[in-house]
């Protein structure tokens, strides 16, 4: 459905995107993670035909954003990170204008508009002025606008930014509905951990380069490298610490909050981990629990982008 090939965008000597390659199947929800200025919005702007790449190309449903932008626009619904609305235009007039802008006939627009407003829970705001809506409502209206021509692909740049928790939940529910409709959704967000459960694939971008791509679990497994193990100790805390310090696969050992817990980074495999536990039991270490510290997507993102920065 989406094929990005060697996509590069340069502004003078600054490279915003550096030979980005990405292939996405139809119907998936793709989360794009990256810090500010990493290249997410540039990628989305190129896909939305608002920017042309310096080199490379991107195909959406087989149509090139460089040579067939008019065709691409029919396939996509775009929601920018920052957008404004027209003053003195009512909600239904706003949608009617964009519907007409996509060449939808007046009779069809009359049917479509109430359906879209229902989808984004704005039916009761149909005759209100757009500029008087709250930020969350404007975001939902903008999403309805992006859907008016029934695009196959939705490109949503930070759709939840600036929203309060309730509005975020509402937005997430709408995106779930859209996913169930079979739309291919590209979404970038700073709150990706919150959205991770609905993303089929994640791409991590840093300094214009795609540094990881896959499903959430794969990325975590691929990129975590070292595990953080937490061991609960009944007594003889310092003796247990000395025991673990002797293992060559253990580093960054700490006593957590001066309680009966020891945490350390472990480089070994699962088999090595079994052997270590066995060794500890044979050495009569008073351990009553051993667990792997859960890392959420944000931690993974922070650690891998830190790694990319230092390269």
């Amino acid at each position, binding site marked *: 459905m989406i094929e990005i090939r060697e996509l590069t965008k340069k502004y003078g000597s600054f490279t915003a995107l550096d030979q980005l390659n990405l292939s996405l199947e139809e119907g998936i929800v793709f989360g794009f993670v990256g810090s500010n200025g990493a290249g997410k919005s540039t990628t989305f*702007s190129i896909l*939305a*035909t*608002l*920017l*042309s790449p310096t080199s490379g190309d991107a195909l959406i449903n087989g149509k090139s954003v*460089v*040579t*067939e*932008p*008019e065709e691409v*626009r*029919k396939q*996509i619904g*775009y929601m*920018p990170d*920052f*957008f*404004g*609305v*027209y*003053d*003195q*235009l009512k909600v239904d*007039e706003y949608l009617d*204008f*964009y519907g*007409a*802008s*996509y*060449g939808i*006939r*007046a009779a069809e627009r009359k049917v479509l508009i109430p359906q879209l407003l229902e989808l984004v829970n704005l039916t009761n705001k149909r005759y209100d002025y757009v500029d008087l809506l709250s930020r969350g409502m404007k975001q939902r209206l*903008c999403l309805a*606008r992006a859907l008016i*021509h029934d695009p196959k692909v939705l490109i949503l740049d930070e759709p939840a930014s600036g929203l309060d928790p309730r509005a975020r939940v509402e937005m997430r529910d709408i995106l779930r509905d859209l996913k169930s409709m079979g739309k291919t959704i590209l979404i970038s967000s700073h709150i990706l951990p919150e959205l991770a459960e609905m993303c089929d694939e994640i791409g991590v971008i840093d300094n214009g380069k795609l540094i990881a791509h896959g499903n959430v679990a794969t990325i975590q497994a691929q990129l975590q490298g070292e595990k953080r193990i937490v061991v609960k100790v009944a007594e003889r805390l310092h003796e247990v610490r000395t025991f673990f310090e002797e293992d060559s696969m253990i580093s960054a050992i700490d006593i957590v909050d001066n309680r009966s817990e020891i945490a350390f980074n472990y480089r070994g495999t699962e088999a090595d981990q079994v052997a270590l536990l066995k060794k500890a039991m044979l050495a009569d270490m008073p351990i009553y629990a051993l667990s792997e510290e859960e890392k959420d997507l944000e931690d993974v993102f922070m650690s891998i982008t830190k790694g990319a920065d230092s390269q």
Partner: protein
Amino acid sequence: MMERFYNPVLVKELKLRFRSFKSFSGLMFYLSVISIFIAGFLLLTTEFTGKGFFSPDMSFMMFAVLTIVQMALVLFITPSLTAGAISSEREKQTLNILLTTTQSSTQIIIGKLFSSVAFLVLMLVAGLPLYSLVFLFGGVSPSQLVSIFLFYLVTVIAIGSIGVMFSTITKKTIVSMIATYGSIIFLGGITAFFFFLTMAFHQMGSATGASSSFMTYFWASINPGALMLTLISPSIGDALIELTGIELPVWVTYLIVYVLIIVFSLTVAIKKLRPNMKSNR
């Protein structure tokens, strides 16, 4: 059939324009200036001169001055309506969304231009009852009035196109506004200055046997004020022909130059609206 010619930007702009208080206040300002001018003129020529009547000669003079005043007002108002056409969308962060729709660049630019022109036409039409006062006193033919209004329209579209062009190529409305007013000062003022300058050179040259009449004709023919004078009083046009030796009527050159300005400005605006796309129309 109607759907085919439906321009969403034009309809939306008209809707927004007529909901705005600014538009009504602008219209009121325009009609007030024309009314004050006519009332003042009538008072000056009847009450204070002690004649108590209004001759056709005076009616013609009122028509002439009113035409120039109206042209000046149109030149003054047009940039404020068109110079923010695209840049204000950019400033309000609505442009990106508009550009991702399937509307062509031509449709967007034409929609923006025509909505402004439509409002200016409304202003001119709203001023017609005041303008038609001159018919009460005679001295002016309806065909003169029609030709003047047609040239108003050409001028409005040309200045409007310049405004839309600057609005597309500059990022800020204020810059676009300054550039458009600059163009008006050039067309209305600097061309007049050059006309007088080249005429002076021409007359000096005539005394010494040399001639530079083409430039004198050219500067006069692209000046809206000069055009209006030749339309109001064809004898002025004849005098210019006699002075420069170029037989082509001023209005023909004016029409050609202003149509070229319209075509050039709109082409630039359409090409630059989506500047980064290789396929643009």
